[in-house]
């Protein structure tokens, strides 16, 4: 049995970090949120450009992401700020369902300065309370993690992704939950992913999500070269979406896919699962949505080098490209280029990733955390009203 020292939250879920966050429900509230973070040490502001005049499923998705971020087990307490009282209250109420301390503040009728002052007084208490939370020894089956690759090249499909796949297999055997996404980037390998979904209804749900997603891209009829694959992918030797997808799925390991989640579906309780999550293939968008669904740790393989991080989720960067390991060394947490050079086995490279992950779960800061990469990118489905 493997254990790590995590923070057990009110709803029983376990985090690997202990943040107090300040979340704006709209772009207008970013200034207030940044103001709170300036006045009170230990508050992590999570600004973003969305909210105003969003509606329907698009607005629901924004609330799902904001409330999910505030509810994440890496968060000890949350402050929600909005221009309108009703939206702040709505998101704060969603977070409060986890039992976590949460405060809602509105700016209308107060102005920024009064809102910042009121919120900051509450934040002082929340940060002091959070500072006394202790790490507790828990079984690794309490872990919910996510995986995604970015600025991939052919070394990803050859080495870093198979290595991560070996680590994912081990984590799932130990009872952890792992989420993957990148709907468009399964093109050319979508049948392989589908064949790993034993439940016929879930398999059909996956195909429906995949077809709908790709139909939006195909309807544009645009030249995709330079976007999928990206310029970085092409520089690294990837020529087509099929090649990228076949390299991408190497990181999924070998376990059956037992949950299929559309944008708004919450992660159901359970252990030892590999879950597909409908998302774009953009790094920050995927990590943001996975974090909202409860991922507390992200594994990120890169070929040419990607710098993405997240405000509350440690992102572990893994590369098998020796040039990238050298030129972007401050961004790379785990170098598995020995696997590309055939010096170690896939299983050994997977073990190297896993060992590092346990250190991060126990508190070691990742490169992205130290370098203050805090990308937060809610997915937007369509135009605002």
């Amino acid at each position, binding site marked *: 049995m493997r254990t790590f020292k995590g923070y057990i939250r009110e709803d029983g879920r376990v985090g690997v970090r202990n943040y107090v966050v300040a979340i704006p429900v709209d772009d207008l509230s970013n200034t207030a949120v940044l103001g709170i973070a300036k006045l009170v040490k230990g508050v992590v502001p999570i600004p973003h450009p969305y909210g105003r005049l969003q509606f329907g499923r698009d607005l629901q998705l924004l609330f799902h992401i904001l409330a999910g971020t505030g509810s994440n087990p890496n968060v000890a307490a949350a402050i929600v700020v909005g221009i309108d009282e009703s939206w702040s209250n709505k998101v704060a109420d969603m977070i409060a369902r986890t039992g976590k301390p949460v405060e809602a503040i509105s700016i209308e009728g107060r102005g920024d300065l009064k809102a910042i002052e009121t919120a900051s007084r509450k934040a002082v208490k929340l940060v002091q309370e959070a500072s006394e939370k202790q790490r507790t020894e828990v079984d690794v089956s309490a872990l919910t993690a996510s995986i995604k690759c970015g600025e991939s090249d*052919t070394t990803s499909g050859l080495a870093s992704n198979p290595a991560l796949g070996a680590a994912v297999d081990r984590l799932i055997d130990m009872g952890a939950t792992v989420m993957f996404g990148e709907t468009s980037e399964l*093109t050319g390998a979508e049948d392989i992913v589908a064949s790993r979904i034993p439940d016929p209804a879930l398999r059909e749900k996956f195909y429906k999500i995949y077809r709908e997603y790709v139909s939006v891209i195909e309807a544009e*009829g645009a*030249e995709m070269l330079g976007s999928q694959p990206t310029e970085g992918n*092409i520089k690294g*030797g990837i020529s*087509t979406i*099929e090649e990228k997808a076949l390299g991408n799925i190497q990181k999924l390991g070998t376990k059956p896919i037992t949950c299929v989640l559309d944008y708004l579906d919450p992660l159901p309780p359970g252990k030892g699962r590999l879950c597909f999550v409908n998302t774009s293939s953009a790094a920050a968008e995927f990590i943001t949505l996975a974090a909202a669904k409860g991922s507390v740790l992200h594994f990120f393989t890169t070929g040419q080098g990607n710098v993405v991080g997240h405000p509350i989720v440690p992102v572990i960067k893994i590369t098998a490209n020796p040039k990238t390991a050298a030129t972007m060394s401050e961004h790379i947490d785990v170098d598995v280029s020995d696997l590309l050079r*055939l010096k170690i086995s896939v299983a050994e490279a997977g073990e190297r990733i896993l060992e590092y992950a346990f250190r991060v779960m126990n508190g070691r800061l990742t490169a992205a955390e130290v370098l203050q990469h805090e990308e937060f990118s809610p997915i937007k489905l369509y135009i605002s009203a």
Partner: protein
Amino acid sequence: MSFKFAIHHKADNVGVAIEDIKAGELVAGVYIEDRSPGPSVKALEDIPLGHKIALRDIEEGEVVVKYGRPIGKATRKIRAGEHVHVHNLVSTRWNFGRR
């Protein structure tokens, strides 16, 4: 001779350079699955680390196979040892306006 490129699957007609390969070099491949020796080819041009090398002649319109699966088709005849990339390989799934 040390291995300079890797091959994902026995059915593949391309390998991936695991070191920078120089034009004119005779280079040996390795099957990644069992690490057994694969074919050797003479590189006709520089192939940077991570880029694909043709293991045999590939005809125009022929499917390029990697991971034992189609990754697109050749837009022109590719000779064994040539660099295989966006200049001579296109997606058959997303190839808007270039089919």
